[in-house]
């Protein structure tokens, strides 16, 4: 195992996030010079059209990318740690699909719901999916079985979602973009009611960090050191459900971020969960900012969905991880 890079890694990550953010603000349907981007941030002029684009549309979207990426990165590392499975990810294990199904069901089928109910639906769906995958995977502690159970759950939930949407053609049009994972949908409405859940999910991860670290030595050794393993698993489950649910509520099911980010983070800062829990939200944010830049520039003037870009990046990484594990 290579040694962690130490502080240069952290410095690089932070600088990269800063640069990616400015890039994110500058590119788009109308390219805005970097100097104007800077001016819009530090000396906002309401009369300047470019400034209002930046402050009104692009900055919320950037903020969305940061939060969604941070949630997915954290959820991924917690799932990998507690499941002792390097292939765990809220997308691959069907948790995002479960959350998406419940949101679609809630909005289309149950009457009289407004947007504030979306996160609750998302949490419900994420919880049902997580419990379903855990039941299917059994107690055998077999990574392959867990991954297959998750893939099956994801397929099942997506199929049900598709059926629901076929029944409601209008709903399909408004939800289609959200369902492949897009930061552009919720960006305008600034769903501030979601922040408490995001913060709670992150706090739960933080509470759990010592136990997760001890759990690396196996559940028996962890228990003999004083870890309450059941409590640690429940707190982790709650954190994953909250974080994945928030990400889905904000941007739809975006896959592979929770898979790619923890592996990258381990290369940069090592395997200690205390460092990983700090590095994964940062790297998740960075990945999602860059993915969103690509999504908005690759086929300009059209726009790809962010989830499609992360799948394009994450799919090959997933295959590489499986191949490396088989060697």
């Amino acid at each position: 195992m290579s040694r962690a890079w130490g502080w240069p890694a952290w410095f690089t990550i932070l600088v990269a996030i800063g640069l990616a953010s400015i890039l994110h603000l500058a590119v788009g349907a109308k390219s805005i010079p970097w100097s104007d981007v800077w001016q819009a941030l530090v000396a906002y002029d309401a009369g300047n059209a470019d400034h209002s684009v930046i402050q009104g549309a692009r900055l919320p979207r950037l903020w969305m990318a940061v939060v969604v990426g941070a949630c997915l990165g954290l959820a991924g590392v917690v799932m990998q740690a507690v499941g002792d499975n390097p292939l765990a990810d809220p997308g691959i294990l069907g948790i995002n699909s479960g959350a998406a199904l419940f949101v679609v069901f809630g909005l289309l089928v149950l009457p009289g719901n407004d947007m504030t109910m979306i996160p609750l639906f998302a949490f419900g769906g994420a919880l049902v999916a997580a419990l379903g995958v855990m039941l299917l995977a059994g107690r055998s502690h077999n990574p392959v079985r867990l991954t297959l159970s998750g893939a099956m759950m994801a397929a099942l939930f997506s199929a049900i979602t598709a059926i629901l949407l076929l029944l409601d053609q209008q709903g399909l049009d408004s939800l289609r973009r959200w369902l492949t994972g897009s930061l552009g949908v919720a960006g305008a409405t600034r769903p501030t009611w979601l922040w408490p859940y995001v913060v709670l999910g992150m706090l739960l991860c933080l509470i759990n960090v010592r136990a997760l670290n001890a759990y690396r030595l196996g559940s028996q050794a962890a228990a003999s050191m004083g870890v309450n393993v059941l409590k640690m698993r429940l707190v982790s489950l709650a954190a994953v459900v909250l974080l994945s649910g928030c990400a889905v509520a904000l941007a739809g099911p975006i896959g592979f971020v929770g898979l790619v980010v923890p592996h990258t983070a381990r290369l940069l800062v090592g395997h200690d969960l205390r460092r990983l829990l700090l590095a994964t939200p940062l790297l998740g944010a960075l990945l999602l900012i860059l993915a969103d830049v690509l999504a908005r520039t690759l086929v300009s003037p059209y726009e790809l969905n962010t989830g499609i870009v992360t799948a394009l990046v994450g799919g090959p990484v997933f295959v590489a991880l499986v191949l490396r594990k088989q060697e």
Partner: protein
Amino acid sequence: MLKATRLRLHFAELKVLDDVSLAIPEGRFTALIGANGCGKTTLLNVLARMLRPASGEVLLEGRSHVHFSRRDLARRVALLPQRTVSPAGMTVRELVMQGRYPWQSWWRQWTEQDQRAVDRAVALADIATLLDRALVTLSGGQLQRCWIAMTLAQDTPVILLDEPTTFLDIAHQIALLELLVELRDQGRTIIAVLHDLNQAARYADNLVMLRQGAVHAQGSPAEVFTQANLKAVFDLDAHIITDPYSGDLLCVPTSPGRARPAPPPAVCRVGP
């Protein structure tokens, strides 16, 4: 200090522990011995509350140990499991420091006392030269010593060890057993599952012989390390002899299938 009353446990139909009652003497070295599958590891795991018995209870400091929180229990009882894992990217130092887990919390991070416990454990287990190595690069014997150091860093009055001498060569086995005796002399209560009967008889103060999930015999080696007990517990024919150098008891298995060749007949002189 540690006392088990009427423990019963079965996996499906199989009785693993059948009415086991034990009083572990405080500040002594107790060895659990018995044939494969007789319930030694299970008993150790029940004592450490890794497994919940179907009935019966374990008393620690006079109260049932289910009333202790995991952390409070871990400050009193440490367990070295039989099988251990080597997480990727973890160094020996990180492993040993993990042993301080029950003594730390969010508001009480690394202290002088933690550092002293780790230093002492590292010195006792003799792993100072390995501290910066990654666990995955160690040999089985080195790894075992590092895990023992982690268990010692936990700094508990009671230490449970499940076959701690596995993977160790003979010199390191003896070094470990001497270490356990040293810990006992410091007042700690040691309970170890041991496979080597002669080592158990030599180093332990108290032998617990298990047979099919029940206690067959319990007491000092002089009391229970007998030909009859070995026959009953292991179905082993052996002589018990006394080591002429140390005075310890030794069991020497007899090999009925490989009888010593008859001595050459005395030469008979036939003569007038």
